[in-house]
């Protein structure tokens, strides 16, 4: 534990010194923006007239665009304080999460506390604007919504009164918070679990059962157009069918895995192991890409280290 702390301390100090040196040379992450005035389309301008003045927005400017071709700073581009701050917060958060690899520590706990709070609220805000405002109120009281938060709602959308049902179900659900009659919240739960069972039963039976069987009906011996036998394709098809069948035998619950069934099931397990091994191997590339992306953020967006091939 003590060595851990010492190592961490040393790493933090070295990193701090490195950052300080770079900052002293002016080589640290900054974000630039330029101010643009929004332009209304002619249709909008005709509709609102002069009642609304166009406002300005800050647009991100790439690092390479900050200076013009002669290396002079462009006059319309300026340093964005809040986005630069955001960049540093993002970098700090990235490092905090990564520190979990070394072991649990205060930085990780800090990041964890922030992400739990922020992401729970994030999910709620998204749920509010899409689930409640758009899907519920947009259907139930479209006129009110069109005059307030959802002006883009098509004019022909009329109130769909059937959406009163989810509203009632939701109220029943929230009844839990009331001091008495909390059991009423079981009704909406039962409704949706029943609905889930019904919907998924049909869905899975169709897509994962019937259609999978259908696509497994292939000739075991493939005859080419000229009447000869295509050995490679025949072998491939036969292997596919044998593999599927042996795997299915593995999943049978009625027979102990002994004797012929046991041997077949064993082959089935082997096929499953190949499936899993391949799945593992295929996933690695995507995962490495994730970490290169995070490193690239730290190295090039934040630390402004020279990017090979671009800055050299």
């Amino acid at each position: 534990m003590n060595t851990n702390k010492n190592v961490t301390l040393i790493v933090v100090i070295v990193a701090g010194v490195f950052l300080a040196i770079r900052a002293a040379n002016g080589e640290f992450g900054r974000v630039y923006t330029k101010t643009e005035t929004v332009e209304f389309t002619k249709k909008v301008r005709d509709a609102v007239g002069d009642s609304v003045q166009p406002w300005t927005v800050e647009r991100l400017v790439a690092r390479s665009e900050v200076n013009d071709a002669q290396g002079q700073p462009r006059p319309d581009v300026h340093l964005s304080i809040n986005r630069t701050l955001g960049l540093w917060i993002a970098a700090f958060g990235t490092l905090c999460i990564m520190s979990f690899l070394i072991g649990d520590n205060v930085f990780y706990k800090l990041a964890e506390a922030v992400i739990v709070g922020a992401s729970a609220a994030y999910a709620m805000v998204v749920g509010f604007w899409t689930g409640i405002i758009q899907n519920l109120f947009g259907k139930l009281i479209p006129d009110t919504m069109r005059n307030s938060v959802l002006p883009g709602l098509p004019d022909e959308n009329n109130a769909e009164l059937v959406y009163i049902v989810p509203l009632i179900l939701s109220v029943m659900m929230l009844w839990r918070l009331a001091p008495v009659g909390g059991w009423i919240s079981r009704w909406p739960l039962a409704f949706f679990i029943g609905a889930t069972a019904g919907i998924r039963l049909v869905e899975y039976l169709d897509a994962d059962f019937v259609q999978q069987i259908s696509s497994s009906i292939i000739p075991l011996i493939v005859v080419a157009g000229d009447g000869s036998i295509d050995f490679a394709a025949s072998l491939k098809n036969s292997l596919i069918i044998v593999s599927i069948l042996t795997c299915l035998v593995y999943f049978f619950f009625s027979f102990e895995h002994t004797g012929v069934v046991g041997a077949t099931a064993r082959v089935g397990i082997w096929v499953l192991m190949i499936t899993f091994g391949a799945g593992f191997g295929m996933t690695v590339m995507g995962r490495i890409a994730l970490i290169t992306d995070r490193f690239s953020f730290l190295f090039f967006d934040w630390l402004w280290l020279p990017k090979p091939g671009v800055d050299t």
Partner: protein
Amino acid sequence: MIRSISNPHMPRLTLLAIMLLTAAGPLAAAPRPPSQVTVTDLPNDDGTGLVIRWNLSPDDTPDAKPRIIGQYNIERKDNDDANAEFELIGEANLGEASLEDKECERGVEYLYRVIAVGLDKSQSEPTVAGKAAAGQLQWIDGSRLWFGVIGLVVCGAVVVFIQIAKSGRELKIRKIAGLEAVDEAVGRATEMGRSVLFIPGILDINDMQTVSGITVLSRVAGLAAEYGAQLDVPTSRSLVMTTARETVQAAYLQAGRPDAYNEDSIYYLTDEQFGYVAAVTGTMVREKPAACFYMGAFFAESLILAETGNSIGAIQVAGTAMPSQLPFFVAACDYTLIGEEFFAASAYLSGEKHQLGSLKGQDLGKLVAVGLMVIGCLLATLAGFSEPDGALSSVVSYLKDHVLGDGGLLL
């Protein structure tokens, strides 16, 4: 213009004529209209669909370069309304000779017409359909009849076997290694005085894997109550938290330990995948549960959870129906319930004999699958050696397109 006219079949004079006409301006060279517009009911729908078919305009040929026809406009009007005008309801690409209009009002007769539109936006004379048509309501979706039959067989088998089991007949079912471990894992956690962590996946209760996870949780909670082990259930959905609380409370009650139930041990963290994972792994390294159960729908977080669990030396049992995550659970957990085994787990663990009947029903379903595949493949193989359009081929295609497809009962 001249560069692209390369059709050798077209008489030179016509070519010249077209060039002259094109040069003369947009008034000229309107494309020739399509012919033979017919309208029929769209089958197997709720009476709001019609199919419009036509023969392509003679100007719509694939070797015309440049193309003369750009698209077809399909217009319709209410046939009973004397004042109705034709309105554009759809466009079809060149070379296409049909369109499904699914926006009809049931019972209203519509008259359709089709217009060929040239690239220069000039329109042909409209070709009006021979007669007006109205959508017909079908009460049964004929295309799904075979699917219904298969569904009845599979569901029927499950129900029948549950009934058989209820009647007290002993059913032989093999053991599943991962399930034996559940008991052991909870027991070990109790001995070590550490907690049991149960994660019911990260999807909401509208996924059957979550429902299955909750049923497994019910058994795990029962065991924990019996042994007196502490149970921790962080959830990533509010409704899963609510459902899990009901379930765990019932399990404690059934085990005769209602006093030991603590509502706060089943808690919501956040809906967001990685926020949830960050919190769960943090809890894992701090609380060091001795047994970790991952039962439900998982995505990329599967390996983060399983590797963290491994690093704290927990016994880990996973069950999921996410094929893409199985490799990671298989690699990093002690026991993994693969796909169907996961759904079978609740039946096994319930200890109720009649629940085991459902497993026999599932086996019958697998037999159906194996049978259909074997017969289908043999027929398809034989068909390869017979005439291309012979009887065998039509049997195979009936099997694939009707029995296992949406072709309906009849050929």
